[in-house]
């Protein structure tokens, strides 16, 4: 039975309709700290943030799974994105040579298209027979030209609509995902501001509006510190019923940045760091924990390969801020280094200039439990993982007490 002093490897508070009432009742029993922590989930469900570098207090004890610790910042790292990507594909080649076979979760989005482009570029036709492409009609619709030219009749394809990672693992495949692709380049949170910049500043004071208008195109300029954008960041963090949340959340992020060992300067750096540091674990393990019912979570975490989760991609990410490779100045040039890599393979101008970031995982992997009907084991009930890799379900003994006790004791410490 879970004890309030136990250490976790993962936690999840989700406002997804299933447990809103429960978390609302917990919130009513908490002080300012616990209320703030639940508000993170109200604003950015699901809340699974944990720091890999710098201060980020949590209501409970939690450690980073060693596999996902952040590599040391190395300002001299000089490999290009293309080089890191080609080396990743070469690693797949070596594994295929040893008899391994891989299943690519292909949504048609930038991350999974990058993976496919790298394999198309680096693998022989014979080696490609060890690749299974998991796709849906959405995958085709996102990039039909790529599908026609490079996938149709060239790779084995399986309908991903009703499959989960457990099926692929049981069939002997090593699933490859691009789930941490966002962490390498930045974040959906930032794109939300960039897409609504003019509207947000229209609500601000004339002085603030004028200042923010003058720096609108400087989102990836390291000489324009992110604090210049504080007013629009706070607007983006606005949460009904919690007027203090934006300032509290901003200050928590700033404290984390100020205590980290990696330079964070521009507005895009600010949002990049939020996902590269505090949201990385979620991106890296959510597939294993929520799109898998049968394989134990430790096996799933260590079997599923996240293409972008290796030291070189992370080191590249830490030394390539504000040089036009992550974003130039707008949502249509986000992930520019990946767009360029793909373009060098497919020469598709439309995709390079117009592709937007979508939420892909749920469109290519089944979310419904398919092999059992026990509602207490539904993915939505999964709220954490212990340090012994035991999956925690909300209704398990001690779990609700664990969250309530720790949230009640949590204090604002920033």
């Amino acid at each position: 039975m879970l004890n309030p002093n136990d250490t976790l490897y993962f936690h999840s508070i989700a406002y997804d309709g299933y447990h809103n009432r429960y978390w609302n009742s917990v919130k009513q029993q908490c002080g300012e700290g616990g209320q703030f922590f639940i508000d993170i989930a109200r604003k950015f469900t699901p809340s699974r943030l944990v720091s890999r570098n710098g201060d980020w207090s949590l209501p409970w004890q939690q450690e980073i799974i060693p596999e996902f610790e952040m590599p040391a910042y190395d300002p001299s790292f000089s490999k290009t994105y293309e080089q890191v990507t080609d080396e990743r594909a070469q690693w797949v080649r070596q594994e295929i040579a040893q008899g391994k076979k891989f299943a690519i979760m292909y949504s048609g989005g930038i991350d999974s298209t990058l993976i496919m482009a790298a394999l198309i570029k680096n693998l022989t036709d014979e080696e490609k027979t060890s690749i299974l492409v998991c796709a849906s009609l959405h995958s085709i619709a996102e990039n039909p030209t790529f599908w026609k030219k490079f996938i149709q009749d060239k790779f084995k394809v399986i309908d991903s609509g009703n499959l989960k990672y457990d099926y692929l693992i049981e069939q002997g495949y090593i699933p490859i995902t691009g789930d941490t692709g966002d962490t390498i380049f930045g974040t959906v949170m930032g794109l939300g501001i960039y897409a609504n910049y003019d509207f947000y500043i229209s609500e601000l004071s004339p002085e603030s509006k004028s200042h923010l208008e003058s720096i609108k195109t400087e989102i990836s300029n390291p000489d324009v510190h992110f604090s210049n954008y504080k007013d629009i960041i706070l607007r983006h963090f606005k949460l009904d019923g919690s007027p203090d949340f934006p300032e509290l959340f901003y200050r928590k992020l700033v404290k984390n940045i100020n205590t980290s060992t990696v330079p964070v300067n521009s507005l895009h750096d600010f949002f990049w760091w939020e996902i590269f540091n505090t949201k990385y674990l979620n991106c890296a393990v959510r597939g294993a924990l929520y799109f898998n019912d049968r394989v134990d979570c430790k096996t799933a975490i260590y079997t599923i390969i996240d293409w972008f989760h290796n030291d070189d991609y992370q080191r590249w990410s830490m030394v390539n801020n504000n040089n036009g490779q992550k974003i130039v100045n707008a949502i249509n040039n986000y992930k520019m280094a990946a767009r360029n890599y793909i373009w060098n393979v497919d020469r598709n101008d439309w995709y390079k200039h117009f592709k937007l970031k979508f939420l892909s995982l749920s469109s290519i992997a089944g979310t419904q439990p398919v092999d059992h009907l026990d509602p207490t084991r539904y993915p939505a009930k999964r709220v954490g993982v212990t340090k012994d890799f035991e999956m925690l379900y909300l209704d398990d003994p001690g779990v609700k007490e664990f969250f309530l006790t720790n949230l009640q004791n949590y204090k604002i410490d920033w």
Partner: protein
Amino acid sequence: MNPNYKNLYVFEDGTKKRNGIYSPAIDRFILVDDYDYHVTLQTTELLTSKLSLVAWVLPPGAEEMTNDNCLNYTFVDKTTIKVGQATMSQSRHITQIKFGNPENKIYNAGPNPAFAQGDSADTLGKLIEYANYVHTVSYAISIIEPFMATALSNTKRFGDAYVPSAWTANLELAPDRTGLDKGILFELKHILYMSDSIEEAAGAIIDVWKNNPDDKAVVIYYFYYLLGVEIPEELKFTQTALPKTISWWLF
């Protein structure tokens, strides 16, 4: 009955509603149409091979936006506009049409600076040119389909729409008499979906007609008449036997 469907076509003052195509990536409208939102939705779907788009029945207050200046126009507040469960900037390629209401205010924001110069500007220029071409062909296809129904002999559409599968289990229903898997109009739409330029699409369309000329003299005639262009030289051979029963409904 007091049906409300007319609200989709006219405002309260009787002014006809227009429609358009919005691009989240460009954050501007790329096309405005005065006539038929069904055709605009089809054009939107055909263009989603290039980028994600959302078709709109335009809200009130967008009267100044035309097909000539729509690249300057966008929504004031996009934060509350959802496409399915996603925000509009994350709307997927399998798209839909949205009906604008007075809260969806549109304003002249000027051109998007992210597409002001370089490759992105060139690609945007090609997109607008191609979008207008696709919309014109989309109209031609959409008009031909019902008006030429008997000439096309699309038994499959009728069967799928009105007859239970069991009734036609031993019958062969076909989209037309060409023998093409999904019929000739599908071929035209697929060409528009997959082509990269007007030249590429127009050439491929000629090839489709040229390779399937039987019983198509009138259809081909109307198709190019609706586009407002001469029948291409390569297809003139199809026009030697226009039936005397031709209905000159377009004149």
